[in-house]
């Protein structure tokens, strides 16, 4: 009964999404108040029914209703309750339901917080979001119904994929999807602007906080995924350039370009058509990512749904959304051009460079992700592209970008005098060069060209990101403090610096070794002594494990005891490696058990990873910067659609 209610609620949600998608758009076109006012109630109604549907699926999981095929395939009696809840989005059908839920949630938020928007703008934005919801609801109902019955019901389920039975992965998809779906709001704003034919600075001011929110969710989502891969999947790797990772990274890069381009559109009324194109790209890349993952066209550890029918549906949907948006763009965007100018040395130029470099990076990753597919289609052979290529090609646009960030963020809008800029950046530049060369040499005992460039770039951005906060802190009494926008920018860029430094140090100084170890033996890695003191069997709720006890000492002094496990999940009989990690701000010690090698020896992987925490911490700080910027006062003030005089000089991006 409950699953049928869920299924029925989903169908009702679709009917409301159709109303939400069609009536407000017609209303806005005809300037019909009654039709436009359908937008909000329809969006709220859709959200309510999607919540009911989602709750029904969650309830079926909690009740162990194995007569529901999806539950039978992805749960089990002994599965802990928290993972029964996370299992709702543990596979294809449920993750679509999650996507729809989040999309409906974003729509309601837009409808709720759009009081100051012109009515026709709200109607168009909500309408476009309704049409997108229709696509996903149809996709779910026609090809991927999570409520499909399995009669007769099995006595027990097939269990959730053990890889997903982990707190990191339980929260990773909702946050990542919130980011993906969030870009649909920017997309809807872009479509609405093109439909009205009006794109002013007020439009950019409405769009910016939504885009920043989507971006910060995506940032946290990607960081969580990377962290999870590190301790659960990767034997200590944190990024694999796997197609699924790339699928989330491309919209992130396009979204990063978008939030910077929006800054120019808001402050100076420039880059309008470019901003629109980026808004379309960011969401299109989110959809493309879904297509790549869900259709299973690319081989990857994450691709758990492989079904050509689904692939064709998403491909058609992708074609309609991207094709439609780009046609509208080709037709309308030329009318939106602006006339203001700027000097070569100005904030605008640097933001333009930022956009160009980010788009180059996106294109490179897109090419690397799709190349195996192209080679296959044209029968040039079956290829795979190793991470070394991605690392090299991605660094090409990224190194100049990172060095330019520091200059760009201290350059004034319109025009900047060189001498003043040079004065301001001289000290941070010297600090960065000294620290970038000294820190690797002194603390890690080695230096090198690429290593120095990376470290200098990291210190450089961190140093210049402190200029605004320091100046604000030491300002004369009575003068205004820096705005949330400037603080957000400074914090986010500081995060970029930590991230850069973390990557540089971890990729240069990681020590990694596979060893054959017997109980009682000691192995030395990077000055730490790892001693295997014991091996024993332990019993988990739905798995058995062999647990190793590894005592770590440094020069005799006790550091930590780690208990890595080799688990066998009982239902799927699949083995899993649970690494033991001693995390510290400046280094991780990582231990994973391999296989029995005979003679009582076990293979063990031991790693020393300096500054690896800076990678995720940097990403979280970036997201936190976004949060600060999105909370800026001016987004909460009632904005009017009238063009305001652009604010000048020293204003934040």
């Amino acid at each position, binding site marked *: 009964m409950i699953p049928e209610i869920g299924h029925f609620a989903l169908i009702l949600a679709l009917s409301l999404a159709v109303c939400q998608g069609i009536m407000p758009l017609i209303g806005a076109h005809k300037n019909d108040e009654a039709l436009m006012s359908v937008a909000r109630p329809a969006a709220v109604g859709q959200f309510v029914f999607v919540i009911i549907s989602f709750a029904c699926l969650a309830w079926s999981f909690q009740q162990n209703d194995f007569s529901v095929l999806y539950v039978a395939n992805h749960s089990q009696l002994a599965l802990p309750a928290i993972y029964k809840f996370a299992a709702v989005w543990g596979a294809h059908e449920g993750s679509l339901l999650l996507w729809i839920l989040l999309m409906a949630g974003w729509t309601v938020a837009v409808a709720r917080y759009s009081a100051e928007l012109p009515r026709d703008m709200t109607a168009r934005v909500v309408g476009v979001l309704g049409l997108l919801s229709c696509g996903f609801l149809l996709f779910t109902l026609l090809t991927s119904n999570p409520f499909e019955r399995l009669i007769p019901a099995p006595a027990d389920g097939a269990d959730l*994929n053990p*890889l997903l039975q982990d707190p990191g992965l339980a929260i990773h998809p909702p946050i990542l999807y919130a980011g993906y779906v969030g870009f649909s709001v920017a997309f809807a704003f872009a479509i609405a602007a093109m439909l009205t034919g009006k794109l002013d600075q007020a439009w950019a001011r409405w769009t910016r906080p939504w885009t920043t929110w989507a971006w910060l969710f995506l940032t946290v989502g990607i960081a969580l995924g990377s962290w999870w891969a590190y301790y659960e999947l990767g*034997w200590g790797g944190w990024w694999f350039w796997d197609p699924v990772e790339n699928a989330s990274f491309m919209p992130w890069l396009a979204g990063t370009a978008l939030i910077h381009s929006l800054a120019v559109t808001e402050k100076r009324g420039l880059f309008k058509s470019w901003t629109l194109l980026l808004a379309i790209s960011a969401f299109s890349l989110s959809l493309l990512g879904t297509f790549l993952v869900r259709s299973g066209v690319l*081989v990857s*550890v994450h691709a*758990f749904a*492989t079904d050509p029918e689904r692939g064709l549906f998403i491909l058609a949907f992708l074609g309609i959304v991207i094709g439609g948006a780009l046609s509208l763009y080709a037709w309308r965007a030329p009318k939106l*051009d*602006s*006339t*203001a*100018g*700027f*000097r*070569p040395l100005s904030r605008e*130029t640097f933001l*333009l*460079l930022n956009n*160009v*470099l980010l*788009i*180059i990076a996106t*294109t*490179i990753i897109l*090419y*690397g992700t799709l*190349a195996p597919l192209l080679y296959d289609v044209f029968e040039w*052979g*079956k*290829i*795979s*592209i*190793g991470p*070394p*290529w991605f690392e*090299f*090609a991605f660094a*090409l*646009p990224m190194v100049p970008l990172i060095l330019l960030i520091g200059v760009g963020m201290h350059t004034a809008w319109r025009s900047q005098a060189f001498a003043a800029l040079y004065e301001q950046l001289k000290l941070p530049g010297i600090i960065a060069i000294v620290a970038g060369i000294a820190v690797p040499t002194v603390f890690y005992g080695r230096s090198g060209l690429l290593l120095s460039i990376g470290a200098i770039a990291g210190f450089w951005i961190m140093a210049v990101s402190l200029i605004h906060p320091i100046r604000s802190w030491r300002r004369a009494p009575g003068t205004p403090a820096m705005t949330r926008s400037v603080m957000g920018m400074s914090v986010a860029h500081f995060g970029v610096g930590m991230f850069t430094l973390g990557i540089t140090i971890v990729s240069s100084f990681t020590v990694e070794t*596979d*060893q*054959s170890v*017997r109980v009682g033996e000691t192995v030395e890695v990077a000055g730490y002594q790892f001693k295997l003191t014991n091996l024993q069997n332990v019993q988990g709720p739905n798995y058995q494990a062999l647990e190793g006890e590894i005592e770590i000492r440094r020069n005799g002094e006790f550091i930590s005891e780690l208990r890595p496990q080799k688990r066998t999940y009982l239902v*799927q*009989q*699949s*083995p*899993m*490696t649970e690494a033991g990690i001693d995390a510290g701000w400046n280094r991780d010690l990582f231990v*994973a058990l*391999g*296989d029995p*090698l*005979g*003679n*009582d*020896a076990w*293979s063990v*992987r031991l790693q020393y990873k300096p500054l690896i925490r800076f990678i995720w911490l940097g990403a979280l700080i970036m997201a936190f910067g976004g949060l600060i910027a999105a909370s800026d006062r001016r987004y909460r003030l009632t904005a009017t659609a009238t063009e305001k005089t652009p604010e000048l000089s020293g204003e934040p991006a």
Partner: protein
Amino acid sequence: MKPRQQRMLAVGLAAAGLAIATVLSLKAFQENLMFFIEISEVANGNAPQDRNFRVGGLVVEGSVRREPGELEVEFTLTDLENELPVFYNGILPDLFREGQGIIAHGRLDNGRFIADEVLAKHDENYMPPEVAESLAKHAAAQEAALEAETDQQ
């Protein structure tokens, strides 16, 4: 700057940046791409001698050998027509076992494949598609049996 100049500057910068990035990255691309070579092709001498490539097949039952207590391991891969001995020094993936379809990255050395990475997918029934295809091609006789296996996916 005038809007037209801005656009020209933007286009010029984008073009120059793209050109440099394209040349460098395509060059690196050629060096880094790894072809999947079927085991029978390797046996016929059609594998590249001086660069890395990927092979995939079933781990032959009873072929996994190692000196007790040592990390180095040897095993044989088959596409059901030809076989290829593989040497690997490292920790095998969780799902590596005899009879399982796996993929290895590495290069050829005197008829032996020296793997620097061995991959097995994290799903009991999952067969890497390249491997499945290669097996199907080289074992027409066993195709029916194989289909039964791929059907379970």
